[in-house]
């Protein structure tokens, strides 16, 4: 979502994330220093100071959310000049004891694997399984909205608002409209 200045672009970026997270938790988003207005560098955001969110479900599950983003200037005629683009993400579901269930990662400026992928936690696999947690299983780009939806529909997390389905549908539509790569 574009804005008139970097700060407005960051606000426009954060608002859907807050709305999305509010479907399953009371979550506080923290930005790295300069993350509200400094263009031209990669910033990070964490939810709840990088502590996993305890989800309302049985068995108890926790979700950790982190993203990298950059404030960029755009030159398209008729559009506001600033927007935020995602530079990476890590969405991780854990058991109550902190063991990884799955994670969706994309970190194109990080280590060896530059495409979006998922990891599966070893506690979810049999000892003789072919899958293990260090394999990078390719995925398309994964939105936070789709992860939150899966928490509710697949993992039995109790939503914290009645209109969660509508909220996620709306925010996912924004994501699909404004993303700059598939």
């Amino acid at each position: 979502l574009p804005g008139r200045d970097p700060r407005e672009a960051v606000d426009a970026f954060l608002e859907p994330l807050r709305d999305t997270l509010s479907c399953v938790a009371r979550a506080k988003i923290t930005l790295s220093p300069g993350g509200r207005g400094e263009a031209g560098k990669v910033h990070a955001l964490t939810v709840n100071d990088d502590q996993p969110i305890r989800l309302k479900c049985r068995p108890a599950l926790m979700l950790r959310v982190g993203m990298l983003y950059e404030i960029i200037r755009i030159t398209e005629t008729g559009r506001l000049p600033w927007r935020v683009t995602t530079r990476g993400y890590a969405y991780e579901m854990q058991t109550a004891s902190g063991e990884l269930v799955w994670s969706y990662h994309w970190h194109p400026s990080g280590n060896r694997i530059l495409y979006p992928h998922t990891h599966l936690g070893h506690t979810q696999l049999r000892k003789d399984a072919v899958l293990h947690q260090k394999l990078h299983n390719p995925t398309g780009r994964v939105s936070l909205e789709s992860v939150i939806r899966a928490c509710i529909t697949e993992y039995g997390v109790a939503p914290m608002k009645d209109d969660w389905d509508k909220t996620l549908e709306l925010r996912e539509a924004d994501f699909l409209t404004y993303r700059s790569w598939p």
Partner: protein
Amino acid sequence: MLDRAAREVLSMSGEEFLRRWDAGDFKDSDDPAITRVAMLIPFARP
């Protein structure tokens, strides 16, 4: 924040993590814990 995460999942200090990250020690790593900590680098380097 990065220091806490590095100690928690990699048993090293944030300082050591950053030094080894800069040296390229993790370039070929498959460990998802590296990603978890690396996502916090902007908090340590404003």
